[in-house]
């Protein structure tokens, strides 16, 4: 069907027919229109979710910014008692937490959800309901974490939550639980967004957009989403360990019970350093997208920018210990990380030089976005240079945890992330609202922000050199830090005034203002092809792309799109449809149907959020009830909105091209989503494996006496059960393929039982060996691995029963069995997890002679 489609030899478009055009537009409108009135909250389309996501992230930014101003007010004069010690500790903890988890990362997702589909000429992302679910999770979790300060129970252990300060319930209270559970919840939604964005870039590109033609923004989104997939899961594993210690006394970080506080630092910074680049790269992506527009020519060194994005992504995973330079690790270990921290400066610098090179060969049109981009360059380059300084171990021994580092990190984040983002806001404002911003006000905002920022943070380098440590709520006049701090405080308020001016400009009601012209900046990328006033469907028809800047290099494209001359100009079946293409060359593979507005995702997010909130207060039975509600809503959503059997196996999509309407296995985005999600899951699991080996390295007596090692025969039996369960799932796929529905259902249910039997054998082995997770880190680690398997088996059971029911209802059948294929993919990962756990529990202790 899709064999060797030569897109350049397509049938010519049908002559334009106004009546047909009108009818098609009417049908598209019915399908893509969002619900009216208050029901708008059920919307799932990326243009709505993206906007909400963006506004919510900025609301958290304003919240965290107000906390920052409170911090600066407290530090303005020495011996100030404006805020108490206790409140101040909450202020800076929540400032860092909210800025990083509720603004910096979500804003990447917000912007990507908003503009990525349009840049790809797609009508939506591949899983719109998942984005809606992610958004609601983010909102609920964020409000929960931030709201805690109103009740005086905000987390107060620093945004890095170092153990034992955060693990010992004598030193930290409810705030730590709110941090752990609230943020784990948000991390889940970040990973969901990452999965969606990866699949979006890989599989939802317009026909013809080969990898070498893909816009830079898409490269960055792909790279950053991939980084999220490898960076966030270790933190989730860490959160799990920490919360188990806090809630149930499991021995992970308590030195007296064989725990080690350093483990948390590793798990946190394996997340924490890539995080910095997860924040930085998407904003650089915005500059890389805007700069060619204002230069009026393609980016010079497109491939070098791709190189640096990928290079930075990899190297950023080799930096985490540079946050731990002062923990007394061997010098050689520190130096590996110093080396990687220096090396990462090279690809980072290449991007900047590509920008300057592009400016060299063009005449930049002056504009507000370019003003912000220039400010970003000036600030970020300086932050990068101080980054090269603190990457050197001896220098860091002085700078670490001093105000020098505060200055450095704000230079990199505000220069590398906030200013480019502001440029992006000014640039895409007309795209979103189809009105123009007030340029004069924006310029005022820029100069206030730029001046205020430097006034606030440049002196901070010197404050650090004068020896002021971070996170102190007061200091003495005799310390000699008073004048510098006063200057910083004034600067912070000027900076805030600048931001307020910009925010007012963005939020100014412009309902009656004239609409802007189409493609107001004369840009080359697809998102500007949208009609003015905008239509809910995005592109009128999905074009064939064979250049990097289609609006410049494919003359007449916009008119062709408008006339519906390209693909999917219609929605005859009343379904929301996207074209799925292949990874390398974007050949059309099939037409994907995606879900429309629904309450189900809202209910699902609400229940899951409630589970996390209730767990914070240890209200287990209520939490369980809401957990059941979450599963119910989610299954309902999946049952009614995914892998529906199409009314016909293929359909014409225009220009003589006919595409299938169903895909399974790795042709379907769903399969890729499972694959990518499970890659993230395996990364979290690797966090646990790392913890196991970390204890083994750090503790001479990690292994207990032989009698306390779980018995080999029980462990073998357990592994047998789990492997049999896996084989039964794989067998079910084969049986269903051969038409044996009954056997397939039986095998699926049997697989659940076999899996639980295997888990039972493992749990029995641990129990029989007398392992008590509250006694020693070895015991806790063994039980944690069993628990990890158990949590996955629960999920496994729900999914097996779901698929069996789908087979029974004939929604999953020998011809249309995407659900079962996705399920077996999941079980492959489960089997791998089981084997690794077996090696850790049985084989490794044996090799080390502990048995």
């Amino acid at each position, binding site marked *: 069907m899709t064999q060797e489609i030569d897109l350049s030899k397509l049938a010519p478009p049908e002559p334009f027919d106004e009546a047909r055009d009108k009818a098609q537009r009417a049908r598209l409108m019915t399908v893509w229109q969002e619900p009216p009135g208050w029901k708008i909250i059920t919307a799932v389309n990326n243009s709505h979710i993206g906007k909400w996501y963006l506004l919510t992230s900025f609301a958290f930014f304003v919240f965290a910014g107000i906390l920052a101003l409170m911090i600066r007010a407290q530090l303005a004069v020495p011996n100030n008692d404006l805020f108490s010690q206790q409140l101040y500790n909450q202020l800076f903890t929540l400032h860092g937490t909210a800025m990083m988890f509720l603004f910096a990362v979500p804003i990447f997702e917000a912007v990507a959800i908003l503009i990525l589909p349009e840049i790809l000429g797609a009508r939506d992302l591949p899983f719109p309901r998942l984005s809606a679910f992610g958004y609601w999770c983010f909102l609920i979790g964020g409000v929960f974490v931030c709201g805690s300060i109103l009740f005086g129970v905000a987390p107060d252990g620093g945004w890095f939550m170092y153990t034992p300060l955060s693990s010992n319930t004598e030193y930290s209270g409810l705030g730590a639980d709110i941090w752990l559970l609230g943020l784990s919840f948000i991390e889940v939604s970040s990973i969901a967004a990452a999965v969606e964005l990866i699949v979006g870039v890989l599989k939802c590109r317009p026909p013809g957009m*080969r990898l070498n033609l893909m816009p830079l923004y898409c490269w960055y989104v792909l790279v950053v989403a991939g980084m999220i997939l490898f960076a966030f899961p270790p933190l989730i594993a860490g959160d799990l360990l920490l919360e188990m210690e806090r809630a149930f006394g499991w021995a992970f970080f308590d030195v007296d019970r064989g725990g080690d506080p350093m483990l948390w630092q590793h798990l946190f910074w394996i997340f924490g350093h890539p995080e910095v680049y997860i924040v930085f790269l998407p904003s650089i992506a915005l500059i890389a997208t805007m700069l060619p527009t204002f230069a009026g020519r393609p980016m010079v060194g497109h*491939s070098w920018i791709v190189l640096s994005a990928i*290079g930075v992504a*990899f190297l950023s995973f080799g930096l985490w210990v540079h946050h731990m330079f002062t923990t007394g690790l061997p010098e050689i270990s520190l130096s590996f990380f110093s*080396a990687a921290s220096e090396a990462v400066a090279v690809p980072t610098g290449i991007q900047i030089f590509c920008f300057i090179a592009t400016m060299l060969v063009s005449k930049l049109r002056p504009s507000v976005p370019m003003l912000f981009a220039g400010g970003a360059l000036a600030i970020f380059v300086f932050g990068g240079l101080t980054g090269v300084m603190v990457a050197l171990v001896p220098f860091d021994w002085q700078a670490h945890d001093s105000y020098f580092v505060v200055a450095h990190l704000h230079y990199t984040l505000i220069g590398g992330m906030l200013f480019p983002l502001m440029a992006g806001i000014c640039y895409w404002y007309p795209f979103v609202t189809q009105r123009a911003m007030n340029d004069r006000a924006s310029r005022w905002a820029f100069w206030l922000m730029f001046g205020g920022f430097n006034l606030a943070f440049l002196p901070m380098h010197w404050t650090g050199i004068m020896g002021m440590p971070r996170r102190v709520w007061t200091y003495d006049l005799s310390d000699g830090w008073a004048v510098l701090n006063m200057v910083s405080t004034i600067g912070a308020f000027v900076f805030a005034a600048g931001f307020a001016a910009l925010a007012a400009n963005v939020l100014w009601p412009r309902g009656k203002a004239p609409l802007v012209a189409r493609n107001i900046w004369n840009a080359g990328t697809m998102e500007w092809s949208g009609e003015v006033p905008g239509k809910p469907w995005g592109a009128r028809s999905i074009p064939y792309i064979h250049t990097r800047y289609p609006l410049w290099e494919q003359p007449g494209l916009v008119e062709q799109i408008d006339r519906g001359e390209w693909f999917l100009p219609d929605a005859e079946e009343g379904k929301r449809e996207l074209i799925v293409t292949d990874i390398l060359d974007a050949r059309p593979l099939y037409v994907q149907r995606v879900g429309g507005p629904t309450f189900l995702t809202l209910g699902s997010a609400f229940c899951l959020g409630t589970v996390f909130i209730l767990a914070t207060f240890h209200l287990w039975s209520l939490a369980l009830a809401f957990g059941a509600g979450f599963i119910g809503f989610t299954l309902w959503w999946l049952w009614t909105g995914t892998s529906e059997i199409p009314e016909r196996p293929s359909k014409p999509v225009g220009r003589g091209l006919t595409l299938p309407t169903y895909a399974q296995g790795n042709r379907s985005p769903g399969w890729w989503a499972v694959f990518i999600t499970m890659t993230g899951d395996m990364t979290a699991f690797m966090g646990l494996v790392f913890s196991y080996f970390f204890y083994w390295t750090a503790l001479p007596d990690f292994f207990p006496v032989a009698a306390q090692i779980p018995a080999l025969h029980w462990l073998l039996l357990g592994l047998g059960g789990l492997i049999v369960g896996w084989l039964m799932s794989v067998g079910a796929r084969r049986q269903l393929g051969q038409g044996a529905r009954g056997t397939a259902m039986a095998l699926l249910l049997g697989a659940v039982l076999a899996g639980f039997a295997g888990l039972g054998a493992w749990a029995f082995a641990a129990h029989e060996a007398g392992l008590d997770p509250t006694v020693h880190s070895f015991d806790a680690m063994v039980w944690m691995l069993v628990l990890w398997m158990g949590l996955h088996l629960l999920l496994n059971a729900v999914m097996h029963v779901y698929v069996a029911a789908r087979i029974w209802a004939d929604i999953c059948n020998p011809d249309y069995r995407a659900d079962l294929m996705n399920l077996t993919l999941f079980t492959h990962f489960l089997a791998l997890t089981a084997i690794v756990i077996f090696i850790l529990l049985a084989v490794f202790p044996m090799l080390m002679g502990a048995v």
Partner: protein
Amino acid sequence: MRHESDKQPGRFGPPGDAPRVIDQGSVWIMVAAPTLWAIHFVASYVLAATWCAKAGPALSEPRWIIVAMGVVCIALIAWLGMMAVRRYGGVFVIFEEITESSERGRDKFIGHVSLLLCVLSVMAIVFTTLPGFMFSTC
């Protein structure tokens, strides 16, 4: 036929758009070189950390293992670089962008970026081996 993705999935065989191996013109070559850096980096770190925790302060053996691993990884990257040049037509310096809308264009682009990543990875591996030359004890 070169591209697996165009094959229809066999009824029970592996489905069609599976990641292609390096020979067939895939994206994997782009991440192969930095992955080698990552492997070398983690191996060096784990070796040093375990050695210092379990064996003792003298680092004579680990230093040479780290350097030797680095040499092996650089050799592998050199092989990848050759692949990027020969199979994909990658070049190091380009004076115009690779915007050809064809499989060849896409291959050249992947080859070129892979080649650049090979160079970056070699640099990063050399950086990782430097501490091996510098420190003789934990």
